[in-house]
């Protein structure tokens, strides 16, 4: 086999590998569709984050607008602070928006449900580094059962 033919075959091989990579990137990993653009950061304080994890999604009505970037404990009052990175294309949320930790399905993973608030003239939009004031913690099943038993006991 001549060198030229070998070179053509190797070129074909590499092109096939590039095609496979592109397919994995675009079709399988969903790269480029959303999520790797520019983002801005919001913070939210919760009493209890339940099973929320880093990289959990932030959704508005089911549409993913960002991801949980980090979870740490506040130094002073020891409550969890969740860092959210939200895509820049969704930058128009008013300051009255609220976030709550929800579960997808009965046994599914936990995500952050973002509820856009009302916007009146003197209410500004959330910008990079803002804290979201209105938060609802995760439902912890053990706490619910405890409350239920307690209320039954006091009847």
């Amino acid at each position: 086999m001549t060198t030229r033919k070998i070179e053509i075959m190797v070129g074909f091989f590499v092109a096939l590998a590039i095609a496979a990579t592109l397919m994995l990137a675009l079709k399988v990993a969903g790269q480029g569709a959303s999520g790797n653009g520019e983002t801005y950061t919001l913070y939210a304080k919760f009493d209890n984050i339940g099973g929320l994890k880093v990289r959990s999604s932030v959704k508005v009505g089911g549409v993913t607008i960002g991801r949980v970037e980090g979870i740490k404990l506040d130094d002073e009052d020891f409550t969890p602070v969740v860092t959210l990175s939200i895509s820049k294309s969704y930058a128009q949320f008013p300051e009255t928006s609220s976030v709550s930790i929800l579960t997808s399905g009965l046994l599914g993973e936990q995500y952050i449900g973002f509820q856009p608030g009302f916007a009146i003239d003197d209410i500004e939009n959330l910008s990079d580094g803002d804290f979201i004031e209105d938060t609802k913690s995760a439902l912890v099943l053990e706490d619910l059962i405890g409350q239920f038993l307690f209320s039954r006991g006091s009847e």
Partner: protein
Amino acid sequence: MEWFARLGAGTLDKLSAFGRATFVLLGAVVAKPRPLKHIPLTIKQIYVVGVQSLSIIIVSGLFIGMVMALQGYTILVDYGAEGSLGPMVALSLLRELGPVVTALLFAGRAGSALTAEIGLMKATEQLSSLEMMAVDPLRRIVAPRLWAGMISMPLLALIFSAVGILGGHLVGVDWLGVDAGSYWSIMQSTVEWNEDVLNGVIKSIVFAFVCTWIAIFKGYDAVPTSEGISLATTQTVVYSSLAVLGLDFVLTALMFGI
């Protein structure tokens, strides 16, 4: 006493083999690069180890993807979760089966051929004649094969995973009737480029290095007789497979463990 002597001799034997293997590797890799001379040689070897492995990689990738879709569907459908077929097939291919099965096939298809080729070159004293002509066989024979293996295997693993996912689509969507939209969209929301795809590529680069190194060293170090070459070829396949499976556990623990 005899037992201790045997243990000591065995250990020293293994250690000196490892030392020789390191010298082969360093002699092949560490040197002044001469691209004009070595790139054509490497391309020739990519053809031998990469392009000629393409058919077995594509066929096994297709069938492994199809079988996983078939098996996964029968279990997932009980829970009404057949939409998760896409991420199941894609994640197991990208994280584990792609790199590992490619490395095992590569060790069997290309690694054994490398060992036999270099071993036979040694047995027929082609390596010594090269040295007599002041051509370093490590640079001329070993280095292009090493680079070709390291370049080819990650590409083969990517092709394997992509073909496997298409095979899963073939069985899951076209035959068993999983919704095509959910097959792709749940896969897209689950699979992460850095976490899953790139870690799989890193795995297959490590496997490529280990498999090619073992194959080349076993050939270069073979006893230059027919029995020696047959033993070296067997050892290449066995050692490569064991190394790949062991390293896969370590790498998985490091990448996805916590």
